[in-house]
């Protein structure tokens, strides 16, 4: 998984691409560290270019959501254009809990 960071006003957008799986936990830990140092109100995780996700990645996002809540931040996940990722989020029944919105 690769990612870019874009800050505009009160919102930081993390745009991810590629596969997001259990083997990306170190990359995701770096993302969480960066976010923890930012003074923003909204965090958007943009999945637009993510083409695969597994349950470990979902778990990582939920941990991030908990951390964001602790900082009074709102986390939003912008869904992938990939039908495979959309289906995975459906099967994992995570769209509501993770505040997944259409890309």
């Amino acid at each position, binding site marked *: 998984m690769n990612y870019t960071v874009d800050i505009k006003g009160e919102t930081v957008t993390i745009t991810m691409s590629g596969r997001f*799986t259990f083997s990306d936990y170190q990359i995701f830990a770096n993302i969480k560290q960066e976010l923890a140092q930012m003074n923003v109100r909204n965090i958007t995780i943009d999945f637009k270019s993510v083409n695969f996700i*597994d349950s470990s990645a979902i*778990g990582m996002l939920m941990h991030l959501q908990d951390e964001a809540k602790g900082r009074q931040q709102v986390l939003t996940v912008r869904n992938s254009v990939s*039908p495979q990722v959309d289906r995975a989020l459906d*099967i994992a029944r995570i769209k*509501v809990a993770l505040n997944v919105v259409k890309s």
Partner: protein
Amino acid sequence: MLLRNEDGLNLSYHGDVVAQTVDYEGWQQFFVRHPALFSEKGAVAIAAPLHEKDLEHVAEAKYAMVVEALDPHDDLSGVLGTAILKEKPALFLSLTTATAFHMPLSYYASATLQKMFSFSEDLRQGMEFCLQEAISNALIHGNLAVHSAQKTGDGESEAFFNAVQNRLVELPWKNRRLTLAARSIHAGLQVMIEDEGDGFDVEKVMNPSKTIDPNKPSGRSAHIIRELTAARHYELGGRRLLLDFSLKA
């Protein structure tokens, strides 16, 4: 990397060669002693170390079998003597945990099987998701023996991932093998995933009455595997998982 054509005549090198010519005779004898390697499906790759490009060849259905050797002198007798291989599976992968952890095995396996058995992209994607869950369970909970008890709170905590990271570079965990084999069955396709861990309480973990708590970070894997397979069978105390996929649209 050593390659062998299906006619068994041409042994050649390419890419980052780790095995040196001094081992040529050793490998040759080795092949002769293991006729199961002469698959009808194509060539065999045995690599030390294994690179992702070896799996790319698998996705082109060029090889039916890819085995990672620890070094050119690794005799692999344990891997190549398995009963599974004697059944001549359509696809056979055997990788160490340290290597498998960083490779998209679920993609390469599903893409290879799609080409071999000509099923839909929709089915391949479901298979990839299912295999991903089964493989990550086998690697993390099986071979690396990092268990849910090491999660603090719910889900994959920092301590949990630190334990994974540490064991990926330590013996014996890093060299434990993950084996993936696939064969045609009357109802479709069966994929076997086997680890070298201690197994687990199958009835407790895979209990179908367990439902997903949408607000919890973990506990989805068993549900996902159930949703995407026609049937599932556990053997060897949970170390071997057999996943049945229907190939009907």
